[in-house]
């Protein structure tokens, strides 16, 4: 029989998991609205405007529409795999958040209990995130294969080749950060980025790992299948890519996965390179006491999400051979060079 403290811990974990999952599950609603609004304003349009004030209820209407759509399984498809793959793609996108630290500890009023703002602080943090995040590619590959449609197959194969190619550069660019922090735990990585350089610049890894950050950003864009690397869903040649045969909620799950992937890479960039929940050093002490650290974290993540949306409506798409050239011939040697330089400077 486990003691009371363990039971309280487990209950706390379950509460945290439910809260985090529900927030992540509904996060794509505001994000789709935001993305369409940003697209509209960049292209000198208004974007969604009809449903609710400034179209804020549009994603809700879209969700209700998707809910009432027929769930079609093509007769040629591998039925079991076809129905399973959206869930296989979606679950890892959520599971990654089991170790993401959103902020420092907070004390709950009245009961005076300290609660840490992460579900679990694993000692293998970053490795877990990269490993679980990589499983999403199975869902996409299975979806493309099980559809038994030519477009879906090409989309799925393109997606898997692209994701495995850039995963290497992505992982190598994280190694530099690990070398500085001497730890794989995301909480420790954030803690090492406290303070300031020369009193002005924040002590963030971006200033120690500029090359690593650029490699990370490019690889993350490719990993999330976003422009300029969105070849798996290149409308001009592949219709919709791997999810061309999906409809209703299963299609929505693939979209959810994509938006969560974008949020995940934003969160990871903030934690690894931009100091996590640490505030910039020039913020006065009184203001720092007023603003909880989690707001700095959310603010930084929001900047990154805006950045990714901005890129999508600014850049054209690469060709597939260019994509592979960038991945294998430029990013891979550069990321190894980054590890070499970091190692030489550290020892």
């Amino acid at each position, binding site marked *: 029989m486990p003691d009371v403290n363990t039971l309280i811990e*487990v209950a706390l974990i379950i509460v945290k998991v439910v809260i985090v999952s529900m927030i992540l599950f509904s996060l794509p609603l505001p994000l789709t609205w935001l993305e369409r609004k940003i697209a509209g304003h960049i292209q000198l349009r208004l974007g969604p405007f009809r449903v609710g004030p400034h179209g804020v209820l549009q994603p809700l209407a879209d969700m209700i529409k998707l809910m009432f759509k027929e769930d079609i399984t093509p007769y040629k498809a591998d039925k079991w795999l076809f129905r399973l793959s959206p869930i296989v793609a979606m679950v890892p996108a959520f*599971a990654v958040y089991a170790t993401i630290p959103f902020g420092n500890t907070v004390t709950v009023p009245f009961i005076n209990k300290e609660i840490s703002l992460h579900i679990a602080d694993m000692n293998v943090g970053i490795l877990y995130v990269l490993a679980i995040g990589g499983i999403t590619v199975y869902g996409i590959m299975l979806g493309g294969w099980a559809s038994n449609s030519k477009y*879906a197959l090409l989309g799925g194969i393109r997606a898997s080749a692209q994701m495995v190619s850039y995963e290497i550069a992505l992982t*190598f660019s994280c190694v530099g950060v690990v070398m500085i922090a001497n730890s794989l735990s995301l909480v420790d990585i954030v803690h090492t980025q406290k303070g300031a350089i020369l009193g002005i610049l924040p002590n963030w890894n971006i200033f120690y790992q500029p090359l690593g950050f650029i490699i990370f950003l490019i690889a993350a864009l490719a990993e999330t299948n976003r422009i300029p690397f969105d070849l798996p869903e290149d409308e001009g040649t592949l219709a919709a890519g791997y999810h061309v045969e999906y409809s209703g909620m299963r299609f929505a799950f693939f979209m959810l996965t994509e938006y969560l992937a974008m949020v995940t890479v934003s969160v990871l960039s903030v934690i690894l390179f931009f100091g996590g929940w640490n505030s910039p050093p020039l913020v006065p002490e009184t203001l720092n006491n007023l603003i909880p650290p989690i707001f700095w974290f959310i603010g930084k993540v929001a900047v990154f999400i805006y950045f990714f949306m901005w890129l999508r409506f600014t850049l054209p798409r690469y060709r597939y051979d260019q994509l592979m050239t960038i991945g294998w011939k430029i990013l891979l040697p550069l990321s190894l060079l980054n590890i070499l330089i970091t190692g030489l400077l550290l020892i």
Partner: protein
Amino acid sequence: MLLSYLPVLIIIGFVVFLASAVLFVNKLVSPKNPYKDKLSPWECGMEPIGNDADRGHFKVHFFIIAILFLVFDAETLYLFPWAVVLKELGIVAFVEMFIFIAILLVGLIYVWAKGALEWV
């Protein structure tokens, strides 16, 4: 120790439950009106051509990329523990790791020279 990995199981279980619940509601409220044309694979509205056996046909380059990935993915597994303790182990571990990486790089250069990374 267990408490730091238990959340993984809980979050996976909860998300699978959530997804199944949503799919169940979708099944309850959605119309069901399948017919052959609707269920056929989408090929721009034309009759699907070819047979199922053609499915396995794709460019061999994708397969080569997958094999190359395996090599470098194994390398990352060595790199992470090495990066954590590098400052303690010092110059010897650093040189050793770069000999290992250099050996793998020879493989990459060979593949590159053979033209396996060209896509045209």
